[in-house]
């Protein structure tokens, strides 16, 4: 007979439990079963009969087990007592549940424990040190009373806790006990376990823990600290909890993951996970691996899943991330650049930018006529449609979709006061946005156009007002985007330096110095145009000061020889 005895608490999926029991006893491990009193008597009798032929199986006295209550501890106590009394050869007692599944050959566990004859494996930490209490009570579970069931009478439970807090009610923790908590699945030596069970103080301890909340996570964990000479504070049973504190369930598709964990036992296993039971219970013992359990591998995968679940992928909007304005994990998924006034001031800005940086350069994607995607496409990745109606139905989602669906490729687009302004706040709040604005450059197309002056004047006033509003947003304290604003006069005076900065920012592909500059449009007469606007009573100010006697800027074409910026 093996030196490891298994105490198993079962309440559902009894056929699966029976299968696992057979697996343990086949390796010589005695098993004491505790079947929840809530299980129907006939079902219990039938279950008992199926295992009647096995000399290594016993059934302990039955208690009613409800989550978070004393019943589970009482069940472990009765079953452990029976184990120690009936199987004197047992050295270590392993507490398991019906949904626990041994992942490695039992002999490996037996050998592992035989090599550590004095070690108790029980996760046990003081309440101040544990991060895993999710939305529950920590130290208070030892100092308050909990007469109401959390599952069935949540309202009374909460009110009673509040009342006790208000009255500053505190229970006294028995002399000498330091509350510890940990996973309820332990493996204790006969010495420690019998010391706990045969302690003359036990009635007092039991009476105390009976009213502690979730005693199954603290009874043995606390008392083991009293008697054990050698505690390894970890559970040999692999169990995971999701971020809401519910136990994670393993399915067939976790087979490889569980294999790689090298853990001895895992829970909870889905009772219908046929392949898992098949693989772990019927595999031949195989080569002994002699490796330390390594739940770390699984931990990393789970941490990632939880992170993704709670934070989402940056910049991905989908139906299951609603509602959540402001709680986005990043407004967009990757860096992008917004240019305002550049394609007005330079004749070939878009093609030049695409050539220099290798980025995807769109025109005005928020233009009132519809999105001007790069190379005149009407659709981009993700089947995003550029029609004005569809875009303006939800412009913010249009932009975030564009950035998400083209991830991996740097996006640049033009913007201006003629365009739909609905995305201004979104872009300003977005730390992925790099916005470069030449303010007042919207006047250039007006200046070049052949329209009546009254019309021009009205349009200029409108555009100036819109741009002024937008600049206010960009300069607000909530702006997280990288914003650069030049007045048109300032930019036209010395264009190379700002262009170099912008290009450097776009990334490694362009990490070199400019060999050619975009061609600036001819501004001969622009100063006079502005003066005319002024004479008509409009006050164009966003472009800065252009002398009426224009000359200095326009004479610069062909472009100046680029100079190096070191």
């Amino acid at each position: 007979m093996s030196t490891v005895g298994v105490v198993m608490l079962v309440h559902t999926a009894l056929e699966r439990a029976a299968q696992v029991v057979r697996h343990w006893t086949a390796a010589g491990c005695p098993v004491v079963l505790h079947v929840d009193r809530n299980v129907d008597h006939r079902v219990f009798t039938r279950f008992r009969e199926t295992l009647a032929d096995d000399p290594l199986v016993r059934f302990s006295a039955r208690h009613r087990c409800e989550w978070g209550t004393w019943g589970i501890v009482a069940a472990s106590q009765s079953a452990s007592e029976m184990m120690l009394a009936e199987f004197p050869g047992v050295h270590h007692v392993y507490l398991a549940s019906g949904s626990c599944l041994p992942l490695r050959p039992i002999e490996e566990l037996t050998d592992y424990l035989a090599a550590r004859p004095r070690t108790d494996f029980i996760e046990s930490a003081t309440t101040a040190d544990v991060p895993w209490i999710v939305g529950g009570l920590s130290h208070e579970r030892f100092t308050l009373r909990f007469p109401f069931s959390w599952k069935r009478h949540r309202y009374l439970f909460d009110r009673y806790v509040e009342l006790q807090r208000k009255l500053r009610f505190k229970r006294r923790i028995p002399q000498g006990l330091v509350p510890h908590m940990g996973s309820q699945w332990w493996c204790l030596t006969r010495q420690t376990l019998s010391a706990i069970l045969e302690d003359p103080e036990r009635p007092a301890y039991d009476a105390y823990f009976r009213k502690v909340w979730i005693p199954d996570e603290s009874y043995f964990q606390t008392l083991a600290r009293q008697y054990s000479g050698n505690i390894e504070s970890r559970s040999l049973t692999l169990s995971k909890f999701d971020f809401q504190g519910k136990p994670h369930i393993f399915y067939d598709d976790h087979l490889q993951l569980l294999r790689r964990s090298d853990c001895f036992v895992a829970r909870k296993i889905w009772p219908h996970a046929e392949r898992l039971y098949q693989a772990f219970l019927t595999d031949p013992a195989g080569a002994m691996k002699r490796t330390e359990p390594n739940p770390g591998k699984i931990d990393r995968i789970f941490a990632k899943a939880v992170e993704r679940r709670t934070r989402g992928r940056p910049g991905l909007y989908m139906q299951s991330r609603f509602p959540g304005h402001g709680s986005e994990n990043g407004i967009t998924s990757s860096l992008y650049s917004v240019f305002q006034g550049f394609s007005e001031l330079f004749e070939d800005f878009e093609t030049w930018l695409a050539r220099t940086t290798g980025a995807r350069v769109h025109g005005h994607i928020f233009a009132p006529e519809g999105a001007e995607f790069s190379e005149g496409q009407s659709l981009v990745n993700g089947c995003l449609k550029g029609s004005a109606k569809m875009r303006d139905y939800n412009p913010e989602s249009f932009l975030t979709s564009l950035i998400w669906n083209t991830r991996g490729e740097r996006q640049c687009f033009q913007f201006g006061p003629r365009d739909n302004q609905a995305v201004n706040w979104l872009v300003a709040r977005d730390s992925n946005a790099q916005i470069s604005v030449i303010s007042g450059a919207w006047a250039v197309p007006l200046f070049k156009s052949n329209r009546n002056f009254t019309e021009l004047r009205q349009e200029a006033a409108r555009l100036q007002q819109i741009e002024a509003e937008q600049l206010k947003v960009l300069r607000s304290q909530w702006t997280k985007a990288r914003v650069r604003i030049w007045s048109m006069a300032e930019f036209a005076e010395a264009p190379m330096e700002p262009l170099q900065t912008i290009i450097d920012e776009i990334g490694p592909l362009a990490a070199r110095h400019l060999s050619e500059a975009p061609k600036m449009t001819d501004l001969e007469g622009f100063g006079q145009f502005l003066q005319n606007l002024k004479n008509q009573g409009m006050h164009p100010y966003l472009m800065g000061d252009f002398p009426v006697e224009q000359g200095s800027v326009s004479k610069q074409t062909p472009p100046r020889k680029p100079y190096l910026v070191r």
Partner: protein
Amino acid sequence: MASPAVPDLPPLGLTGAYKLRWKRRRLLWRSLRARRQLRKAANRTAQIPNDPILCFATVRNEMGRLPFYLEHYRRAGVSHFLFVDNASTDGTAAYLAAQPDVSLWHTGASYRGSRFGVDWLTWLQIRYGHGAWCLTADADEILTYPHADSRSLRDLTRWLDQQGAASFGAMMLDMYPKGALGTQASAPGADPFETLNWFDAGGYTWEYLDKFGQVSIRGGPRKRMFFRDSPDYAPHLHKVPLVRWNRRYAYVSSSHTVLPRHLNAVFDTRLNRPTGVLLHSKFLDEIVGKSAEEKQRRQHFTHTDRYDAYYDALIAGPDLWCENSVRYEGWRQLEQLGLMTRGSWQ
């Protein structure tokens, strides 16, 4: 059992809540009356086992899709199918009546008059669905969900039970062929997604609708092709196809919306539920002929005249495919693209 996970929805106020309650009662009353339009053709409901997953659908001339539909959902773990046949002429009724796990009712009454078949189905759900997990999926809707290749629908519903969740949401994904509609024949009974294996991976928009506490999804090829000038009329793509039913529940408009309101909170990020995708095989080659017929019958959509142009466009056999379309590869791809999520069902 875990505690019931009831989300905090935006408050409706007493009046709002009361109005919805009466709306639900009105719908239930309609369905109660609609039962008289149904004629029993094959009733095998005595075979329904304990704790079943039931599948409900109204069908009309669906011989092309039903064999695959039945096969798919049987494999996924549906225990029994309950169909209403709305005057099919292609042998659908005889085919269904011969299936061992199908119960069938006939009706010649108006599809539109019964709220697009919902009244009939609600009656069947009152009668047979109480307490069971009920899947409501049209013949052209094939449900896929996270881990669909290794876990059954039953695994999903048991997990939902454990979480105290009573409903499961899905997004409809319009699948289309490469090439003009109506040119690529799909063998009757074959997997429709062998020909309809393309979809739009992005370009969807979402809106939170307070009244029913739901997230509305719109987009896809239909919006892109036929509703580009009237995005407001584009079809909604969110659905609540799987519900642990109660005889007091009622679908409001097809399976998009269900009452009571908390059942609609299937996409709520705070609840962390998995969500699925309903692969929509609407655009099989027969769509062209069917559209011509439907345009005449005027049995679909609440505002039929808005959709004349839509039918005309479909009759012309357009090509929905574009170079940014994505080829369907399975549930992992849909999860990767953010069209569905496994939530905390890892």
